[in-house]
């Protein structure tokens, strides 16, 4: 096994990892910093195609407290106020920093970034990942591209003392010993059967190469995890899997049902707000379908064609295939064809802490429950709606604490038996090939999760009976891991991708089973407990897996900072039934087109 030593080890060279490397080198020239990256930092992770907006930013007049109020309301009260406040306080400084590095951010005449939503600004982010990656390279940190992390190495004193990985090119094992480790490997895609079948199955919202490796490493290492049951499910443009925000926020297109009626307001008017929570926008779309008023669409009638062309350019910087579809459809419509309407629907569920709540349970310094291990970005839980800029903020907060810690400790020794056991575990599919290709096991995992753990096919809903079957089948799937086979280092990576997904999926099912209420429609939708229960369940559901594989569930209280937030009532089916007879008129048909910008 190849070995190397460093002071700070950053696992994952994505949004959080690149900024962490730069921050560490700027704040502590004397520390040796290593970044372990599965692909290449120039285009790895979920920013590979780019992004066209920063969705966590404090506009003029907003404060960390007002941002927190927005997040608390959106997550129906279960959120870590300490994490959200400390993250929000860093947001704008980090956005300015990346702008200094070369990210183009358009401004209005007063020099303010262009507002796209409550906490969202427009950017030209096609080159964002190379901008971050090149800065990380230039920082003096050592970047180890093509190393797939597989496990935490635990030192003799019980601290996390390094990370194991293997080269995705040669298959060789590597152990990086470190004083402090930051994990920022992203969330988990590919747990559920995806929206599109076969050859298009990787046409999904989140990066299919984010396999939950960092979550799996933490679970196996006995780290406390939180809120996996808060799955994130994106509302997408169907088939293209394009983000709806670009059209809904930037072009002002409304969500309409098959009758042409805007349907969101009939929910939120009753709720007394001006907008809906993220999950209720998806839930309302499902309810419209169930009530026979689907499919649902984004209303592009009346949108200025020149602005539409601008949207296509935006999509090129973020979801290029969606730009291809939209450009082709717009052209077809101009030349006399009938443009396919922009249908919207939910995608597959993900475990991702940048959008949702799920991930490592961390303290305000971003320390995990394992000494020597910090977490930031999509892998860290408790603080939703942080997105890319929140990942930068968390990385910076973690690194500041890690620098202090690294100066106070030595690298602890790692027992040789542990090293040998991990080498054998990781290399087994290559050295002693079995009979099961990784894709077969992945398809079985996705089938079980879809059918028994609230996938797209079940309209995201589940009850204890299904979860019991999910648990049974996942156990059997995990028993097949020993039969995985690989003939190349690339296939070895695919084997470990599916192993990590299985580990995350098993933990997810335990979380889903433990929370016996429905707090977040679609994200966490129990058919056997359809109501929200604030007296019993306004808590975090956490889990710790012990060495023998048993999972212990722990509940942690929600500790509210001094803010006053009125939670929205759940948008339940009753809302629809009550309003059905009262609003026959289709306002959309008489809607005045937006003035060209």
């Amino acid at each position: 096994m190849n070995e190397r030593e460093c002071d700070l080890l950053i696992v994952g060279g994505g949004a959080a990892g690149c900024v962490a490397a730069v921050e560490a080198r700027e704040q502590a020239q004397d520390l040796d910093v290593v970044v372990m990256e599965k692909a290449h930092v120039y285009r790895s992770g979920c920013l590979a195609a780019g992004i066209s907006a920063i969705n966590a930013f404090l506009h003029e007049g907003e404060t960390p407290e007002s941002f927190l109020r927005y997040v608390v309301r959106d997550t129906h009260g279960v959120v870590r106020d300490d994490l959200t406040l400390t993250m929000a306080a860093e947001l704008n400084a980090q956005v300015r920093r990346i702008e200094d590095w070369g990210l183009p951010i358009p401004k209005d005449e007063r020099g303010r970034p262009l507002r796209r939503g409550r906490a969202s600004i427009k950017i030209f982010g096609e080159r964002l990942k190379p901008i971050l990656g090149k800065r990380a390279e230039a920082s003096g940190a050592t970047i180890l591209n093509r190393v797939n992390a597989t496990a935490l190495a635990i030192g003799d004193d019980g601290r996390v003392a390094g990370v194991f990985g293997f080269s995705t090119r040669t298959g060789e094992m590597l152990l990086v010993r470190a004083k402090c480790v930051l994990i920022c490997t992203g969330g988990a895609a590919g747990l559920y059967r995806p929206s599109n079948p076969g050859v298009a199955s990787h046409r999904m919202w989140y990066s299919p190469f984010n396999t939950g490796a960092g979550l799996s490493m933490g679970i196996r290492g006995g780290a406390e995890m939180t809120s996996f049951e808060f799955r994130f499910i994106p509302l997408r443009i169907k088939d293209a899997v394009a983000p709806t925000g670009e059209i809904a926020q930037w072009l002002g297109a409304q969500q309409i049902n098959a009758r042409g009626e805007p349907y969101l307001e009939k929910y939120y008017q009753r709720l007394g707000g001006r907008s809906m929570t993220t999950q209720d926008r998806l839930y309302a779309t499902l309810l419209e379908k169930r009530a026979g008023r689907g499919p649902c669409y984004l209303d592009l009638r009346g949108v200025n064609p020149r602005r539409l062309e601008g949207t296509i350019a935006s999509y090129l910087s973020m979801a290029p295939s969606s730009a291809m579809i939209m450009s082709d459809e717009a052209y077809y419509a101009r030349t006399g064809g009938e443009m396919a309407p922009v249908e919207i629907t939910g995608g597959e569920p993900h475990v991702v802490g940048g959008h949702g709540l799920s991930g490592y349970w961390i303290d305000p310094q971003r320390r995990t429950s394992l000494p020597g291990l910090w977490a930031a970005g999509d892998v860290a839980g408790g603080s939703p709606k942080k997105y890319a800029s929140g990942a930068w903020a968390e990385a910076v907060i973690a690194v500041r604490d890690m620098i202090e810690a690294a100066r106070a400790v030595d690298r602890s020794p790692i027992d040789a038996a542990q090293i040998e056991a991990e080498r054998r575990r990781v290399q087994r599919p290559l050295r002693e090939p079995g009979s099961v290709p990784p894709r077969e096991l992945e398809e079985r995992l996705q089938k079980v999760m879809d059918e028994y753990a609230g996938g797209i096919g079940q309209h995201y809903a589940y009850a204890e009976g299904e979860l019991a079957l999910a648990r049974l089948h996942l156990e059997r799937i995990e028993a097949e891991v020993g039969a995985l086979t690989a003939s190349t280092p690339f296939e070895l990576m695919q084997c470990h991708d599916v192993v990590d997904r299985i580990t995350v999926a098993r933990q997810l099912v335990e979380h889903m089973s433990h929370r016996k209420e429905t707090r977040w429609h679609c994200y966490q939708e129990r058919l056997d407990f359809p109501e929200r229960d604030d007296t019993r369940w306004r808590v975090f559901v956490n889990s710790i897996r012990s060495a023998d594989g048993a999972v212990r569930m722990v509940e942690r209280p929600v500790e509210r900072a001094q803010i006053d937030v009125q939670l929205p009532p759940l948008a339940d089916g009753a809302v629809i039934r009550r309003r059905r007879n009262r609003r026959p008129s289709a306002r959309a048909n008489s809607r005045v087109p937006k003035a060209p910008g």
Partner: protein
Amino acid sequence: MGIFVDEERCNRCGTADEPMCVRDCPGDLMFIKENGKAAIVDNRECWDCAACVKVCPTQAITMQLPTSLVVRGVQLRGRAMKHKTEWRIRLRDGEVKGYETPSTGKPPFVPSL
């Protein structure tokens, strides 16, 4: 889905080192075949991020939409320059439409809503 390499144009970046599409694919899906031309391991694995399309110095790579989802024949080419990326989308009947996206440095003026 996926990525198609025009072998007439691909010169593996004129280098013996790692070509840029092989370097940049976030799924590590690109490789150099025995004939010295770039190829994708399996188009089913492709995320459609177009990283390889943009970075290719000879514009040898096109991205095409899977016929299992949409109409056939739509293709994307791109070219990353210092401050912008140029794009060409070939539409279903062969018409080509060009776009430009700013990528680094001073942003262009965008009217607010």
